[in-house]
């Protein structure tokens, strides 16, 4: 590869600073998946139609397949890999699990980021059903009909459970 197509860029990825030489023709999705091995984000179209590749760049939700990696120089990037911490799922992730919002799971990493961005933007506000639907209209899911995803988004917006550890979907023998 010639020098003209390589460029050194620096960004933080899930809170960790990285500096690397990237092929300037690559999308951020390609750099994250191929160069950094962050395969959580998925690609269902590669041209900004499906949202499976959604990630956050400086707190804004983007389709990483149509976001050039060079644009991410000096940015703070969040991907699905950074959402679960210390063996614990994020509230959004937990809501998707609890509400049965995951089927094949291919749209899931993108949806998790879309909901996370939405929840963070709407903190403290009340939102309508339409706002929930519109905020996720850029993410396609072919399995769920969006119903359980809708429920998961609603659940992600509820104030924290005063009694953590309570399990409202019992899965123990009883």
């Amino acid at each position: 590869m010639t020098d003209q197509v390589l460029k050194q860029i620096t960004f933080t990825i899930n809170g960790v600073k990285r500096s690397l030489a990237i092929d300037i023709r690559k999308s951020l999705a390609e750099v994250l998946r191929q160069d950094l091995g962050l395969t959580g984000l998925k690609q269902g179209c590669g041209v900004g139609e499906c949202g499976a590749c959604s990630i956050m760049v400086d707190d804004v939700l983007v389709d990483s397949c149509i976001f050039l990696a060079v644009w991410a120089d000096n940015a703070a990037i969040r991907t699905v890999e950074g959402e679960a911490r210390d063996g614990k799922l994020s509230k959004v992730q937990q809501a998707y699990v609890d509400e049965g919002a995951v089927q094949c799971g291919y749209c899931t990493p993108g949806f998790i980021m879309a909901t996370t961005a939405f929840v963070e933007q709407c903190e403290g506000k009340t939102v309508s059903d339409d706002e929930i639907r519109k905020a996720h209209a850029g993410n396609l899911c072919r399995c769920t009909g969006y119903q359980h995803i809708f429920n998961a988004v609603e659940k992600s917006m509820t104030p924290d459970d005063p009694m953590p550890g309570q399990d409202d979907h019992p899965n123990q023998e009883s």
Partner: protein
Amino acid sequence: MAVGKSVKRIDAVAKVTGRARYTEDFFEPDMLTAKYVRSTIAHGRVTAVNTDKARQIEGVEAVFTYEDVPQTTFATAGHPMALSEVHKDVEDRLLLTRDVRFMGDEIAIVVARNELAASEAAGLVEVEYETYDPLIDPEDILAQDARPIHEGRSNIVGEHNYTFGGDVDQAFDQADHVVEGRFATAMVQHCQLENHIAHAYMDDLDKIVIVSSTQIPHIARRIVGEALGMPLSRIRVIKPFLGGGFGNKQDVVLEPMVAFLTLKLNGRAVQINMTREECMLCTRNRHPFYIDVKTGVMNDGTLVARDMDAISITGAYASHGHAIAAAGGSKQSSLYPKAATRFHARTLYANIPVAGAMRAYGTPQVIYALECATEDAARKIGMDPVEFRLKNVARQGDINLLSNKEILSCGLVECLERGRDFIDWNRKKKDYEQFKTGPIRKGLGVACLSYASGTYPVCVEIAGSRIALNQDGTVHVLVGATEIGQGSDTVVAQMVAQTLSFPYEDVLVVQAQDTDVTPFDTGAYASRQAYVVSNAVFKAANQLRDRILAHAGIMTDEDPKHLDIVNARIVDNRTSEAVMDMKTLAIDSFYHKERGGQLTAEISYKTTTNAPVFGCTFVDVTVDIPLCKITVNQIINVHDSGVIINPVQAAGQVHGGAFMGLGAALSEEFLIDPESGYVYNNNLLDYKFPTFTDVPPLNHDFVETFEPTSGYGNKALGEPPVVSPPPAIRNAVLDATGICINTLPMSPHTLFSAFKSHGFLDGKGGQHV
């Protein structure tokens, strides 16, 4: 009790964290990329191919054309091998073709070190053609002098006839009324979110490993062997997590090619990762149908006769084509078992993309026509459409006259009653009387469905399960049942937990298929998975339970009949006292120097029954005449799928199916140029499958019956929910407007023509209503 509970999906955490690995997430060092060179015409023959320029591109390792591939045709349909000639799949495919049969046909393939080089080189392969008029319209395809799309074969791929329930002509003669209708459905696409992708490499001189996003790993293994003339044991297929299939991956699409390429390239890893546009155009989709239906009905509401004549278009290659119409037609006998019924279908080749298996396999097309025709019959005699159905649909104890089997479980009547209550049918029917004129109209609609729980007796139904006790007292389960997102691994774990009396968390399922390792099962299709695996799992879990108790008996010097497993502990069933925990038993079985061994059980089981399932959709719609727009205000699907193993997962299947049905009803269709065969909308922007803002809240309900032929009382559920929404919506639009829209989808375009021809619109944007 684990069965019947909404336990969390076994793979949910892996998926929400992005740690679940799909085919694209596995790479081999130095893996090559392959790109097809596709035809730019729909019908013709290649007269010359020049690959010189392509080979000069930096990074290109090889170019193969139709001249370089084995010349044995093979069948791609993901069916079990048929021992009888009648059910044999049509062998009409080569790895690359000189005869072009649809726009996008595969003429050559370029292999390069990276995707850019491969794409660039593929664009530089020069192809010259002799061109023929594309055959797209059924009339042209069936014309006496039509060119055979496959040399030496008729353009009719298959023809099917059924008659049951007595003399059909006589029944029509005696009917008080005969109602006729003509219906057409569009070619729609699965649009599973993960495109087709596979790679292959060799890990020995004569052994190929294929990693593929497939619903049918064991079948893929056999077909690759057939396509390449290699023994099956030299081919290993690994299926990682799968991003949806809906039937599109119940076909062998990429596996033979990647296997061929690695063979040719000295065992190097080669991947094909289809773009969305390629995946939509060049894999499979749903057969468009043209159907004429005649219904004979008595004044008292008895359905006495039915005659259906269907044409199904399979496109350029047979794939599943020959089986789809037959399978779809056969569902009538379990839905309306008493009417004298005749079904005739012809499946045709055409120069359009290839149709194959798609969720519910011919049934959505047939039931759409059937349930529209049923509605028309009810209206003819002025009977309420729900009452009409209640009078005629199957009930438990009826005989399915096509299979000559008794229907052992059937909750359809209750499904209809519950749906009617939910939608508030009687009240709204009256309320909506005032919305039958003017620009905004309202209506209610209903449609029923029946489906099967597998493919027997057309195909073998075989499932395998192996369960092993781990040293920590948990179990690992291996099944050939193929998880594709539908949740089969979770329900398998629930079944094992139920029978072993283990906590659900202590049952682990090996979550990848590997044909060298997993027991034989033909894969995920026909909504068969939970039904056919249930018997294998039930038997294997019972076998392991006996072995665990036998070992407990040896350890405790007790007769095993006095021992039991309760919540993963060995219990004395006379006193209910715990004797030991599972870990203690496991450790003894593994490490005691004289007794025991690893405790395992393995069953391969053939199911020789096929339980019919039932359901219905109720909808409440508003039709905006000037906007030519249908709004679904409310929708509910009610299903009898036997015992519901996992209510939340089952609801997810129903919602997903209803959503796909909504798309097929209102917006989804391949726009194919009738002259050239060009597809205008093979991408997710122009192909309109519903987004989050396009679907109403989706409702569901289950009427739980117990199916005695199933290990846990469960029946099929994956596909049925897609079937009944389109006719229910069509019937609601009829209720609202008085117009029969007999073409899918009921897009604004279709509505505009219909409203115009009925004088509702003047065609210049004005309205007459």
